[in-house]
């Protein structure tokens, strides 16, 4: 099962380290990362494998949101299916 993690907010040091460290600790494997910076605005999209997580996906999503708040970024984790549904036929 795969999910998409998006991290957005004002750019600062150590965002990738912080987020990927947290995900590794939760049993999430990062498969792909794409990152852009537009006028100090940081946007990172990670495709991750969540087969190894120990909690429900919705709980992990909540934890990501809380991590985001603690580092002043917006972090969302969503099941990949929503993007497939909307953007592929």
């Amino acid at each position, binding site marked *: 099962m795969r999910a998409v993690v998006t991290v957005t907010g004002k750019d600062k040091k150590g965002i990738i380290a912080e987020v990927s460290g947290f995900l590794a600790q939760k049993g999430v494997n990062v498969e792909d990362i794409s990152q852009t910076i537009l006028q100090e605005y940081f*946007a990172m999209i990670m495709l991750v494998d969540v087969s190894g997580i120990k909690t429900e*996906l919705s709980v992990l999503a909540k934890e990501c949101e809380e991590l985001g708040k603690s580092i002043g970024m917006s972090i*969302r984790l*969503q099941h990949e299916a*929503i993007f497939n549904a*909307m*953007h592929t036929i």
Partner: protein
Amino acid sequence: MWNKFDVLETIDMIEREHLDIRTITMGISLLPCISGTPEKTASNVYELVCRRAENIVHVAEQLAGEYGIPIVNKRVSVTPVSLICAPFPEKAIMIGQALDKAADNLGIDFLGGYSALVHKGTADYEKLFIESIPELLASTKRVCSSVNIGSSKSGINMDAVRQMGEIVKRTADLTKEQDGLGCAKLVIFANAVEDNPFMAGAFHGVGEAGCVINVGVSGPGVVKHALENIPHANLTEVAEMIKRTAFKITRTGQLIAKEAAKRLGAEFGIVDLSLAPTPVMGDSVAHILEEIGLECVGGHGTTAALAMLNDAVKKGGVMASSHVGGLSGAFIPVSEDIGMIHAAEKGLLNIDKLEAMTAVCSVGLDMIAIPGKTPASTISAIIADEAAIGMINNKTTAVRVIPVPGKDVGDTVEFGGLLGRAPIIPVNPTDSSKFIERGGRIPAPIHSNKN
């Protein structure tokens, strides 16, 4: 496979443009609950609804968390209650109260189906059942009621139309402390659909399976935003853009509906893509029409723009889901749409224009506050006009008007929350009572004879 722009587009739709799953509605057949006594039937109803829908709130929260999309309402619709209590219609209210208790226990937002289908004629037990509606709406919080009084196939039951004018008045009167709020939970339909997930008009049709999940998805803000990007496009391109956007929105609904049905052990019924506004800024159908090029909704051109919007939404939606149903189109509830509220306050949107709009949109005269002194016969005549539009055009039409007790044109009524606020708009002051008193049945139109 999606790319990073697709991901950011989806997130923008949800976070900035108010894309949401407006409702997951579980339809439950109450037919197995019928028993010899009203007490036993009421307890069967309570037990069945609580058991079937036990996990609806939990599953909705789970799905919202996993997919990162808000699921605003969790609802239940049931078999028209007039059928369940046919042997004891004078005790119908017991069934309604059992449903309210079940809704409260489940933590759902609304439960629809305190309904009767009398489009061709009213049985004695239905007449008595309908008489119980005002008291039920005044004494419960979450139960919604609807009555189907006409159809393209059967014509319009004018005796029921006359009765419903009086029922609306009595409901307003019994809930006068809350400015007639009871009327916001009462819809009078022509051509009612059996799988509508939206309130207040949801009920679970007798042709449906035992337990079904219907999902309503919305997103006026998403459509408006998409149109903002093509300010100089011609209307062919505008319609195409609406279709594409509706497609994306509906796909989300299809995903959630299938998954919810699976987890709740129910059948997947339909996805209803309806642009359903809320009073929040950026979630308005009126503002889409204004983005298309009207100075203000209600002005000349409104009906044409709305017709195009409604049709393009349906076309995009049909392509995106294996089963599209319900009402699918654009809703125009005046008090729930910030653009409509402003237009009505300025006197630029009147009931005559709204009536014309209902000929081309997906429902009818919805959430319109009218003077409290409006006679029952005038309300019946408004219902008859709407039903005629539905009957002739083979579409669903509905009336949900609130004759606000003690208030008149110039006053405003505040319902709060998703129900919003509404300036009281004038109705035609002439007398229609002789027409309504005639009763009988308006025959079905010639084009209904297709067999």
